[in-house]
């Protein structure tokens, strides 16, 4: 059986890759994908601990995260479409309507 710590290390590395993606990429679509990557790595952590303690609550939590991720992507993509329709860009550096 693979130790739980292996899963935790893998999830941590995936989370860090997602974080670096969010911080360095400028396309709103790629940033959304990297956020999904981070959510998925957290899911891996929760499932690993669910097996570690033989408790299904972690898996129920992951189910809720799946629902939230789907909602987040739907609304986020709608915002990106609306913005790109008005300004013809998905570059987050050019999204500065609220900046004064």
């Amino acid at each position, binding site marked *: *059986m693979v*130790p*739980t*710590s*292996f*899963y*935790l290390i*893998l999830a*941590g*590395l*995936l*989370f*860090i*890759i997602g*974080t*670096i*993606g969010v*911080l*360095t*990429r*400028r*396309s709103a*679509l*790629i940033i959304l*994908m*990297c956020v*999904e990557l981070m959510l*998925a790595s957290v*899911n*891996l952590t929760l*499932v*690993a601990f*669910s*097996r*570690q*303690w*033989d408790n*299904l*609550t972690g*898996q*129920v939590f*992951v*189910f*809720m995260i*799946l*629902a*939230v*991720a*789907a*909602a987040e992507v*739907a*609304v986020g*993509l*709608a915002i990106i*479409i*609306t913005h790109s*329709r008005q300004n013809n860009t998905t*570059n987050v*550096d*050019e999204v500065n309507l609220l900046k004064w």
Partner: protein
Amino acid sequence: MMTASILFFIAIGAVSLASALGVVISRIPIHSALFLLVNFVSMAVLFITLDAQFLAAAQVIIYAGGIVILMLFVIMLIGSDEIRENAGHRVWTPYVGILLGVILLASMTFALVEAGPPPATSAVVQGGVPEAVGMTLLTRYILPFEMAGVLLLVALIGALLLARPPKQKTEN
């Protein structure tokens, strides 16, 4: 102690990490979305090795079947022209991002080393088969389950309202 399961884990983990790097590094949004698909499928395989069969199926259906397809639709809708990175006034962004990532990695490593090895894994009696997860979800966690349904409904209506074409264009 390199048993077959550990070798399998390392192989799938390598695929997962490589595809995650592909999402971040790739210059073409379509390629990023496809790398994301590979990453989600490898994650589903890892869920199966963790005795979470229901979540593995849900992962493939929701993430791979729903979210990635939605992203591909949007990429094709608004055009996948390459965005010029480093918008002039913020050339330092990549360095700061990578530096923050390394700091995060260092703090996580420190926490993991500090905590020491976890106690031995207890024997799994029920695992994550759909019956067990469904029973937990629909008895003990029925209220969060219903709220997730409401959340999805709100998100659906919100996305429809946001992405609706502007009114003056339709009247022309």
